[in-house]
């Protein structure tokens, strides 16, 4: 009997505001404990929350981007519970009426594209952190509290249980991640906890109603999300197969052991005693605010993808790859703009290089696009040397590698200084390494003649019909040219000369 996995995902996206959701304290990551906690954040007696318009603005942007409804009136509520890193003894969240309702996210898997529906997205504040390690030894066995994160704005995005596999769940999480970073509402750094997913997982036999779900927490990478879902689904199926039944509970994923462990069950679920926060009047959003947010929204990935295919003539696959992240497509765009469109295929060349050599180097050195040691203007200069025939793609790769490592050295020396194009770098490297493609037919003919004369056995094999032998000859000519010859040109010249020989 086969089972179907049903997954819904709750995501906490930290909104990229400079200050907190209800206070003026900074949200910057990594400050010394409790140095970014104001009187409001540490909940001194008598202080009051004031909503951050920037956080609301980002929630509106999200609602528009997913095609959801922006509630003209939403309500902040208190979620009451005691915990040392929750200074007020309640979290300000939205409960009955969230700022965004509905909407959907498009996901792409091996099976194609489909929509995942969203239930809602609501604003809330983050809690602080309990520190169990790294405290001064003289304090003895204590738990420290760091309230820097307390009051950081979050948008909790809740999906419908629309996903049916770990692959779909990851595709959803990636699509959502791409979207929130694309529209500039979240930095998306999963290591810093900027984008956190919890998965609600249940299993059922085909055609049966939804099974009992478990909520899996601590999924701070896409890989862990997939592994945790697979483990949890297997656990639930085995439980049912053994005659047991799934108990609704919250479970913690342990990446070291690749398993989920129970945190708390529904029976000991707390009663949060939600009620509207009397310190905060209902959040009202008028049409003008929504229109301002709409106007500030960038072109969304799907629209841009279609435009790249139509206007730049690149493949749908490449367009999808480029629009997977805003900074990547921005980089592509900057290179394209800096490259004079003299060459019919210039966009294609840019796309190939950005998705090929550039991506490979970034992956190898784990460098994000924004920190690229090769600025787009320089890459454009390099690619111009392909379009004007100076370099082969192979040569361009060598020059790029050198630019990359040189740029890295420079950026190490200039830490924190914005990279700017070092003019003439490309040509300097080409000159220094003598990497200029030889397009002089006479020079290639001379080399080809030398190769033919020096390799009678291979020439004989070719004349006996062995095509492989031809490639060997091309290789020899390329080698003799020290890689500077255009392979296509070598190809043509060799064929012409060999045919002359045989006739």
């Amino acid at each position, binding site marked *: 009997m086969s089972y179907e996995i049903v997954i819904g995902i709750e995501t906490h996206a930290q909104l990229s505001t400079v200050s907190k959701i209800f206070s003026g304290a900074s949200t910057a990551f990594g400050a010394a404990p409790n140095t970014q906690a104001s*009187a409001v954040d*540490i*909940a*001194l*007696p*008598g*202080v*009051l*929350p*004031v*909503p951050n318009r920037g956080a609301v603005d980002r929630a509106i942007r999200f609602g528009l981007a997913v095609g959801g409804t922006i509630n003209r009136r939403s309500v902040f509520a*208190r979620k*009451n519970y*005691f915990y*040392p890193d929750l*200074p*007020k*003894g*309640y979290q300000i969240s939205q409960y009955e009426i969230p700022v965004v309702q509905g909407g959907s996210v498009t996901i792409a898997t091996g099976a194609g594209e489909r929509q995942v529906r969203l239930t809602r997205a609501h604003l809330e504040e983050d809690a602080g952190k309990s520190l169990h390690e790294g405290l001064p030894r003289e304090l003895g066995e204590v738990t420290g*509290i760091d309230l820097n994160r307390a009051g950081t704005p979050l948008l909790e995005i809740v999906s419908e249980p629309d996903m049916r596999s770990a692959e779909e769940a990851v595709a959803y999480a990636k699509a959502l991640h791409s979207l929130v970073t694309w529209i500039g509402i979240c930095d998306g750094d999963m290591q810093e906890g900027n984008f956190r997913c919890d998965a609600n997982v249940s299993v059922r036999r085909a055609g049966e109603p939804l099974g009992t779900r478990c909520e899996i927490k601590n999924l701070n990478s896409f890989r862990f999300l997939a592994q945790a879902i697979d483990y949890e689904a297997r656990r639930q199926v085995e439980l049912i197969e053994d005659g047991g039944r799934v108990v609704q509970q919250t479970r913690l994923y342990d990446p070291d052991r690749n398993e989920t462990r129970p945190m708390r069950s529904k029976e000991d679920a707390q*009663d949060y*005693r*939600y*009620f509207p926060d*009397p*310190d*905060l*009047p209902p959040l009202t959003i008028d049409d003008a605010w929504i229109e301002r947010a709409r106007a500030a929204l960038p072109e969304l990935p799907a629209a841009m993808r279609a435009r790249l295919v139509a206007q730049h003539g690149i493949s749908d696959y490449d367009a999808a790859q480029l629009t997977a992240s805003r900074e990547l497509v921005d980089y592509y765009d900057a290179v394209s703009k800096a490259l004079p469109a003299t060459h019919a295929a210039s966009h294609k060349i840019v796309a190939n290089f950005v998705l090929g050599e550039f991506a490979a180097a970034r992956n190898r050195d784990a460098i994000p696009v924004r920190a690229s040691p090769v600025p787009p203007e320089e890459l454009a200069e390099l690619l111009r040397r392909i379009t004007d025939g100076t370099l082969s793609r192979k040569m361009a790769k060598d020059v790029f590698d050198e630019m990359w490592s040189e740029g890295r050295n420079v950026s190490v020396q200039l830490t924190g200084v914005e990279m700017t194009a070092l003019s003439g770098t490309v040509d300097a490297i080409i000159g220094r390494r003598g990497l200029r493609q030889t397009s002089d037919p006479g020079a290639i003919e001379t080399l080809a003649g030398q190769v033919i004369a020096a390799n009678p056995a291979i020439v004989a094999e070719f004349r006996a019909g062995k095509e492989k032998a031809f490639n060997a000859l091309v290789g020899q000519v390329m080698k003799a040219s020290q890689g500077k010859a255009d392979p296509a040109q070598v190809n043509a010249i060799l064929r012409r000369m060999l045919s002359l020989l045989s006739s």
Partner: protein
Amino acid sequence: MTAAPHQGAYHAATIGELARALRGREISSVELAQQALTRIGESQAALNAFITVDAESALIEARRADAVLARGDAGPLTGIPIAHKDVLMTAGLRTTCASRMLEHFVAPYDAHVVARLRDAGTVLVGKTNMDEFAMGSSSETSHFGPVRNPWSAACVPGGSSGGSAAAVAAGLLAATTGTDTGGSIRQPAALTGVCGLKPTYGVCSRYGLVAFASSLDTPGPFARTAEDCALLLNAMAGHDERDCTSIDRPREDYLRVLRAPATARPLAGVRIGLPREYFADGLERDVAGAVDAALAELRALGATTVDIDLPMVRHAVAVYYVIAPAEASSNLSRFDGVRYGHRAAQYADLTDMYCRTRAEGFGAEVKRRILVGTYVLSHGYYDAYYLKAQQVRRLIARDFLRAFGECDVIAGPTAPTCAFRIGAKADDPVQMYLNDIFTIAANLTGMPAISIPCAFTHDGLPIGLQLQGNHFDEARLLDVAHRFQQATDWHRRTPAGFVA
């Protein structure tokens, strides 16, 4: 009659009289502060009106005020000694909320109203005693012991702002502040024979007021006269961006109407509504008689009276004792022993730390309200209690809005009885809660109300008249009260033993 008329001494003077004396160099701000500090010290054993007194800082502020006076830059409140209810944050000066929980808490900032009164030049002499976390109607639940009524040491001064009311009544100060969540300014004003104003919710910022019930809490002034209340409100009122429930509206001079010259019938055209519900059986005879006499006086001044109905107001106490504890249960969660305030010395684990800290830090009445509030917000009870209470709250507001179509001011007794004996209702929460039966509605509707002294009982205890107005109608309330006080001298009486 133990009351003696005003003899011209500064301790019985109004703010206006003190300001004139300061400007005329009859007395300096330092001398005024010293007199206040001396009288507070002498009265403390009998009244227990103060929790904290800061003589040193008061004299520094007074010297600064004298310098301003000497420069001729003085405003109407420059150099006037003042005390704040100990639920309002004062930078550098202990703020306890009359609770063991905050016994040693020193705030790093001023409440908005405290800052505004500081900016206006008042001289802060100390913090007044009150019911713990402002929960009570008798000022008996204070961790620092009960406040006593200057008119009878055996009686309560009302509450929760009992210390602020007693301080004015005993002539310790001409100005104090309080907070009013269900009558906590007006009821003690009535029971001690002074004026107490609860402004419209949102007129005075709640920033720095330690929250009891956020949707009801309202800071306001105590003084001897309505005119002084207007003077204090001029300084206290104003928009504050740190409080989202603070209302952004043009500044209003609450003294303007009061300055109109007195005429024979200054209240001509004013319609005073008399809710049938406020004059029902059960009103103490002296109280009923006093209010009738005050109404006769108001009619003599030109006002007309009209009977009105407020059918839903009978639910006000019940609604209040759902909403206020609900909000309180959440507001007081921050007192957990983690970051500041009391923390139990011994505990086994985190939960034990919470339990012991809060068991030790809070008194019985605070615990009672946290329990009630937690209950009414609980899953399965929320709709039946909290939601229903909010619905009825709106119906009560609708009654008042309709009534203010028929009248300009609603009058009645402030409290159903005069001051009662200390301990008399301490073991009967419901009897205690019924003290607020006439005052609670103004908090539920957010409307302004004032209590002014209007008579004394046969054994010499003050009785208060409450005047309620529509939203933002403080000026009219103050004007009616002022005209009444121009024609009467109840507000000029002072308790024996406190008049030198």
